[in-house]
């Protein structure tokens, strides 16, 4: 994190530490996994065996090693692999699911960002309607909900620091990414916003 902070560009309030920080997460393989009708249990077993985790049936993120699954709907997950290539990950999922689900590469369809900072909750409240209080939106919790009318999926991760500090990863459709960053920049400006320059790329 520290190196990306050095490279970041400050938006909004210039003095003091940034209240909100955004870092792009490039190079992550992403895929939509959709269970076949009535096949969630069978799929969970297969995925569990293959990746060593318990496929969540609620909006949660579950991870094992470099792979994570985020529940985005009944029988639907956003799957990701920090090390993989999109097509290879899709293929791995298809093989693991063995017909109980379909997998679709989304590595180019979504832009992923890590958001953190002491004022993140206040900034996100300007675009998101759900409750991100740490007692309500706990570590590992995920939600699919619009930010400033733009569809997003976000999940809370452990960003280090104080237990009350919010760190999330957020996925936005690529065509909306520029507008999303514009809206986030406006929302976070009063707190000082460090945006890694490659996020706009």
């Amino acid at each position: 994190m520290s190196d990306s902070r050095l490279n970041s560009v400050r938006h909004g309030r210039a003095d003091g530490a940034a209240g909100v920080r955004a870092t792009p997460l490039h190079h992550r393989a992403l895929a939509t996994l959709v269970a076949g009708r009535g096949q969630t249990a069978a799929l969970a077993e297969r995925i569990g065996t293959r990746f060593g985790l318990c496929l969540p049936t609620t909006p949660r993120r579950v991870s094992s090693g470099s792979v994570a699954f985020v529940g985005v709907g009944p029988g639907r997950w956003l799957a990701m692999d920090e090390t993989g290539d999109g097509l290879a990950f899709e293929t791995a999922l298809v093989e693991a699911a063995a017909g109980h689900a379909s997998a679709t590469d989304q590595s180019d369809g979504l832009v992923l960002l890590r958001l953190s900072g002491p004022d993140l909750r206040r900034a996100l409240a300007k675009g998101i309607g759900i409750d991100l209080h740490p007692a309500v939106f706990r570590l590992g919790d995920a939600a699919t909900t619009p930010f400033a009318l733009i569809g997003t999926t976000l999940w809370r991760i452990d960003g280090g620091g104080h237990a009350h500090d919010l760190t999330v990863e957020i996925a936005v459709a690529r065509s909306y990414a520029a507008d999303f960053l514009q809206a986030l920049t406006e929302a976070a400006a009063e707190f000082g916003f460090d945006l890694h320059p490659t996020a706009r790329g």
Partner: protein
Amino acid sequence: MTAPTAQNTGPSRRLAKGGLIDRSQPLEFDFDGRPLSGVAGDTLASALLANGVTLVGRSFKYHRPRGILTAGSEEPNALVELRSGARREPNTRATMVELYDRLSATSQNRWPSLEHDALSINRLAAPLFGAGFYYKTFMWPAALWERLYEPLIRRAAGLGRAADHEDPDRYEKATAHCDLLVIGAGPAGLMAALTAARSGARVILADEDFRLGGRLLSDAPEVDGAPAPLWVDRVLGELASFPDVTVMPRTTVFGVYDGGTYGAVERVSDHRAEPLPWQPRQRLWRIVARRSLLAAGAIERPIVFGGNDRPGVMMAGAMRAYANRFAVAAAREAVAVFANNDSAWSAARDLSRLGVRVAAVIDVRERVDPALTAPLAAAGARLMLGSRVIATSGKRLSVVEVLTGGKRETLKVDGLAMSGGWSPTVNLTCHLGSRPVWNDALSAFLPGSLPPGMTVAGAANGRFGLAACLADGAASATAALADLGFAVPSAALPRADDDPAGLIPFWHVAESKGAAFVDHQNDVTAKDIAIAHREGFRAVEHLKRYTTLGMATDQGKTANLTGLAIMSALTGKDIPETGTTMFRPPYSPVAIGAFGGSHRGKAFRPTRLTPTHGWATEHGAVFVETGPWLRAQYFPRPGERDWLETVNREVTAVRTGVGLCDVSTLGKIDIQGPDAATLLERVYINGWSGLEVGKARYGVMLREDGMVMDDGTTARLGPTHFVMTTTTANAVKVFQHLEHALQVLWPELDARIASVSDQWAQIAVAGPKARETLARIVDAPFDLGNAAFPYMAAAELTVLGGLRARLFRLSFSGELAYEIAVPARQGDRLVRALMDAGAPFGITPYGTEALGVLRIEKGHAAGNELNGQTTAHDLGLGRMMSGKKDFIGRVMSNRPGLRDPDRPALVGLRPLPPGARLRAGSHLIPVGQPTDAANDQGYLTSVAHSPTLGHAIGLALLAGGPRRIGERLRAVDPLRNEEVEVEVCNPVFVDPQGEKLRV
């Protein structure tokens, strides 16, 4: 009577000491251009009063001089224009404007000046503006309305002027969540917030004032044996120590909505000349609260008597607030007090203590507790019990006429404090439709059934005493939190006394001389209510509409109950029988900008960018909004005179060479699973099961009512794997439609869908040279030859040395054409590679305009024809409908009315004068027939100039369309007053045999 005497200022009325103001921080401001000064802690109203400015505006209808009536958001009179230029804002309440340095305010509704208002003649024309005048006026000859009455009434009755320029400030919207929302930070609200905070609950405490404390600031009582403001500071200090407690001053909770949602507006920067950097002017909050506690206090109501609107007449509680909180004497010489209740005596006592001479206390009651009267008698005030004020005089109040002991007496005073008792501020309890309930003992409406999750405490609940408010706040919060499962620690209540609150109902001085106002803002008098009664408008809703009582921007906060009481006296029914007062959101006006938030201008809705946006920008594209997308409309080159020349060049390039166009905006849906083909069979009108892997097919989907919903091509990539494309406009709708089919209609189907619209950059490469262009980028050994990859073929392959891609041989333009897709991040690379590959053939990027011309030349229906009112038959696609299966819309599409051969159906049109231009929207009228609705046989849906044919072409929906090819019609554009003779033709203008796309 109105001869101007004094100037609209006088010597300072600031009391020598006291008040919750900071005398060390002087603030300069101006009113109507006159420089004045106040101090930090002032409102504009208190600062005006401190400077002796008692005349601040002219009334709505009669242009009567008006002063400041209240010290709160209920203010009906003191509405001013604040700021200037683009930030000018009309109708701001001077009582709610926090004074800042160099504030500039202007009085409203006066011409040429506040002192000398030429239109106060309206008062002589008062009968014109009396009850029902709007309705009666509308019945006058209509011709006179536009020319005479409306301009007259608009000039005379307008309040304030909106700014002429775009608002330079930002607005924000935000959402907050809490366990308990406390509305109002008076004694009950503070006690509730403190109780909740100590329980560990998430609390929001909101108050419209910039300083919290409510009546603890204005009434100057003692709490725990010390001045109340000290207790307030202590509570606020403790609240600040809880991380999950948010205290929101300058925040009006203006509405209650379903599901525990509350609307609030935070005036973030209104107390500054301009917002600080990065700060919005206002922030609109949606507060989601598990429980709410309404502690909004009570609003004092006027008594209706002759001249009760004269500058100098003020609510007793307001006069008390100006003295206690702002250290301002509302009158210079002496005040009289006129009341029916004990609270006014407490006000009189405070005024007297602070050195304001109280000349008399006039109470309609025969007997008043000696404990209240004695201190005033001792201070030299006349006690006039069993008496009433019948008239006032002076441009600014100078004389009050009192009926006492059967005789009329005049008092020389320049201030009159009135109090008709207190109405609990139940407004928010009514927002979900419940009505307040009359309480005889209190002579007031109390909250009726409450919105789910809300409780009411303190004066808003009819508990007027200070000790009662503190106790009620704590108890109500405890109950609400216990309900949520919080353990609430018990704590001792602060010590306080209850003010005496004795009252007898009294509303209207029957012996009044002159106009006696009920609704100060809408200039409704007691006489207007009598007229409404006489003319039969007695039900409260009729009364409101006939007289406009309570229909001004203040929603009659000071007027509704007195109006109701007067009607009740006229009908002989009691008040609850006469009606109740209802309130709707917003509690007080909210700027429209706050509702818009950041969604204005370009940010009105989100914008989507295509994968080639950066490249298109470099190439000088002109962009156009299509739905949420920003797409390249055309790519002008230096020297081109207008867009038409550019578009003609782009179209010609596609027809003769090769062009490329980003079509990534089409919706793309991945459909997989054993029942994928079955899903397609059920949503498309044509057959799918027979589609070979590696082939694409054009499909049309209907709504269940038989109308066309969308069209597009779907390709089969594997036995159980399809990728569907939708139109750009309907991408979201079609996805929802498929989900509906899979989850609601046929949940037994196992088909899995995922949107891949953003995953793939898709570029159309079209024109005779398309194959040669593509051949330069596809990886060997892929064979692009017509035999190996014919029209409607689809394949997964690699391009540019290993880049994953999908290739579809589809044609929207009618030329040899392909659509090639690569992962979205590679879209920029792909378009540049294609430009290089096509360079030898003069490859030309084209935009949505050329795309439109190409498709009109080919007679393809698009958005203008897929308008929700056309069937597959109407669009010439009826033969696609499979007779072998059911599909959504099949049954209804066979309704006789939808199969009527005379329905408007798609045709082509060409103008008979060769150079004539066609206009979209023109109506089709038979030659020789008059242009009227009876002869209207259809209209032009899409038009273009065809550079291929060298003349204008159009598509139209024409009654009985295809049967009429060769017929001549008139295309009439009544808006432009143009007309051109046209010939009906085949809608496929170019290559009607479809030979070019199969080469």
